[in-house]
């Protein structure tokens, strides 16, 4: 039994696209304990509600995170709309659903690429990111922005997707699905990936539940929570099942995300078939007075936006709870007892989005 040593991991580390710092307490090659410390990206954007009027704050809410920016903007808008009792037109709700699912596909493909890179499978990283560009092309064509869309506003959406474009999007999904199947096969069947991920970083069902894991991290451990099932936007009118795996290891979390891309494709198809004609926005009258917790399913899990208004143009308080923050305690649990070489794979398996987490 050798003595314990501490290896610092991050904030700047080749495998991490974003800074988080972990102190890894090692005994031989095994991690005894992982102590996270955060704050490298903290900006304090919640306080900007005092300086921006409530319709302008959508712009800030979207910049909480550049990967799931649309869903951040949408969740904030949902909260304000609920406080103001705004009836958002049906077509706008369907458009929000479609853009949310495209954001999910782009986020999951991004993560699959980074995960492959963490394993050392660079070819697969390139393949995932090449396919992701086709999703970004759709987002750019329909909203004008590749990663930050700016298409959501209080009371609806800014842009409509014309019927022909929707048909074209659905047609293109066929090719996308075919290409993604090839990549999915590698992620789910390749021996080297299975060897690096099976049985690594196991999180039991009980731990996932008690530590408050959300999103694919929870669903990989058999906890079937998916906020989309609460029926916000147009999800109430769409049939889908939350993807659940039971093993709780890195492979299970990867499989959840791979299968969710297929489920997103299906949701976009259903939404495109059911979308009604009509207006895409209502003009908000007056100012928000009251408070609301607005929840939505981000690619990484449950996102909560709390908004509180006092009847003026500025909100009194905005509070954002992001999925990565709630997934850090499960991550610490997974890291205890793992091999040092598996740390990058396990850290990435919760899909850490530090920009989101620290706001």
């Amino acid at each position, binding site marked *: 039994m050798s003595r314990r040593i501490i290896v610092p991991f991050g904030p700047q580390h080749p495998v991490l696209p974003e800074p988080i710092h972990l102190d890894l307490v090692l005994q031989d090659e095994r991690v005894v304990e992982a102590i996270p410390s955060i704050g*490298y990206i903290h900006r*304090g954007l919640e306080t900007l509600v005092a300086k921006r009027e409530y319709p302008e704050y959508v712009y800030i809410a979207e910049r909480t995170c550049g990967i799931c920016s649309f869903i951040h903007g949408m969740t904030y808008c949902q909260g304000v709309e609920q406080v103001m009792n705004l009836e958002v037109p049906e077509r706008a709700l369907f458009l929000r659903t479609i853009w949310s699912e495209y954001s999910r596909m782009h986020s999951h493909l991004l993560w699959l690429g980074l995960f492959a890179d963490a394993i050392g499978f660079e070819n697969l990283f390139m393949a995932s990111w090449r396919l992701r560009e086709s999703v970004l092309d759709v987002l750019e064509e329909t909203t004008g922005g590749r990663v930050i869309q700016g298409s959501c506003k209080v009371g609806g959406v800014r842009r409509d997707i014309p019927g022909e474009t929707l048909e074209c999007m659905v047609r293109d999904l066929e090719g996308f699905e075919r290409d993604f199947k090839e990549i999915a096969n590698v992620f789910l069947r390749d021996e080297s990936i299975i060897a690096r991920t099976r049985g690594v970083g196991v999180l039991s069902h009980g731990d996932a539940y008690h530590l408050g894991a959300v999103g694919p991290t929870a669903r990989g451990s058999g906890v079937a929570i998916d906020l989309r099932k609460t029926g916000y936007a147009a999800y109430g009118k769409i049939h889908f099942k939350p993807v659940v795996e039971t093993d709780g290891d890195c492979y299970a979390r990867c499989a959840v995300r791979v299968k969710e891309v297929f489920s997103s494709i299906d949701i976009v198809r259903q939404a495109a078939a059911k979308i009604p004609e009509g207006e895409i926005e209502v003009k908000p009258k007056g100012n928000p007075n009251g408070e609301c917790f607005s929840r939505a399913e981000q690619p990484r899990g449950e996102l909560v936006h709390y908004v509180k208004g006092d009847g003026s143009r500025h909100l009194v308080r905005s509070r954002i709870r992001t999925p990565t923050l709630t997934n850090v305690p499960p991550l610490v649990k997974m890291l205890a007892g793992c091999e040092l070489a598996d740390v990058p794979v396990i850290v990435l398996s919760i899909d850490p989005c530090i920009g989101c987490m620290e706001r």
Partner: protein
Amino acid sequence: MTHLSKSPWILHYDASSCNGCDIEVLACLSPLYDVERFGIINTGNPKHADVLVITGGINEQNREVVKNLYDQMPDPKVVVAVGICASTGGVFRECYNVVGGIDCIIPVDVYVPGCAARPESIIDGIVRALSILEEKKKNPAPGRAAMGGER
């Protein structure tokens, strides 16, 4: 772009960006934009890097990290600030924890506009930085020349 005498390696650090510019920097490495055709490789080691690419503004906690990364890079080196947050603090400049752009800590050679910066403008910015790098190689800063030129 003029003739390059070596393959420039970049070091990417996310100061306090929202990730938007980060994933666009990474997208530059993907097959569609493929900056490897200029010989550019994204390295994780500051001691191997020629170009420091920073996204996001400076905040109280990462101030030392950015300074440290810059100091660890060998001369000649260039710094590219990607996105408006890295250039001026951007939409977050009024936040209590944001100090400002990268240039309040280290000298910046190229500013890339955009929120989020597009891969095309990032590539343009880095290619411009490469000619500045060649320039710095030919005329090393006086302090360094006295110590024996470039390392």
